[in-house]
């Protein structure tokens, strides 16, 4: 899995993994950081020790960093700028009933 894993060829460290923590059941997993590990099981254990030892999580995901496909800074214009002048895409022109507001 990921021989280079986003690292330089002369880098002798273990592959890099991205860690996602879920703070509460039902909540989304959020990116917590990254770490090095030789394989998936050890990546999960390291994630527990590095990112979940202070009650930060109820569930963990670890993903090899080279498996993440990211948009590049050059994509910023074509990807995100068109959203700037389309406020009608936000559902903010409705009156939210008080009972619903309270819950959120």
């Amino acid at each position, binding site marked *: 899995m990921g021989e280079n894993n986003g690292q330089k060829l002369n880098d002798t460290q*273990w592959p890099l993994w991205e860690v996602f923590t879920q703070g509460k059941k039902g909540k989304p997993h959020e990116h917590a950081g990254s*770490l090095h*590990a030789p394989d998936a*099981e050890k990546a999960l*254990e390291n994630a*527990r*020790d590095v990112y979940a*030892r202070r009650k930060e999580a109820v569930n963990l995901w670890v993903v090899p960093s080279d498996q993440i496909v990211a948009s590049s800074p050059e994509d910023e214009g074509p990807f995100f700028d068109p959203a700037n002048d389309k406020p009608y895409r936000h559902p903010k022109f409705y009156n939210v009933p008080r009972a619903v507001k309270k819950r959120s």
Partner: protein
Amino acid sequence: MQVLTLTKQQALFEYLIRLADDRLILGHRLSEWCGHGPILEEDIALSNIALDYIGHAASLYEYAAEIEGKDRHRDDIVYFRNDVEYKNLKITELPVGDYGFTIARQFLFSAYSYFLYEKLSAVDDEQLRGMIEKHLKEIKYHLRHSREWVLRLGDGTDESHERIQKAFDELWTYTGEFFYMDEVDELLSSEGLAADTKEFQSEWKKLITETLEEATLDAPNFNQFMATGGRKGLHTEHLGPLLAEMQHLRRSYPDANWE
């Protein structure tokens, strides 16, 4: 000749001290890795486990002090006892060695702790049972962490295989003590307050043997000479210097506090 009869209270105090001493001494040994781990993630993992042990020891000492009823604080028990009064297993006081040695010891001890605590989670003492149940969750993780490393080091490179095999070969002689029992254990077992170590010895052996096999390591000779003495305060030469380091500040400045 005077025949001393052990009371239930004395036996429970002694039993708690033995459990606590194992964890304090091993926790202290492991803490020596803090800042020296082979990689950052393992440094954090080992320091975490060290803290778990010291936490387990702290609550056991506190309960021991309560059972003793002499108004001693747990710190008095830790900082003002000499090596002969420490009742930890010899395996816990051995120097850290290399990473393979640390992992081999962690695996042997965690497996023993796991089976012991499984038995103790049914003791007839609500306060002790509460502690055991809480600590057992952490012990399960310690076992997982060390077992996974044994598999990787044993079935890893030639060097890692050789080093961890050597570590296990050196450690076997200290494993017989896990199952040591004397009048303390016998009295408490009959009262439902302690575990009979014979009841989980074969399960322990099975887990160790199967894991070593999976890790392509040689199975141990369980019938070799086994070191004993820790439970009676007879230790290796390694405990004294450990205690000296741990106790010297408190003994030099007994009234020191954090203010």
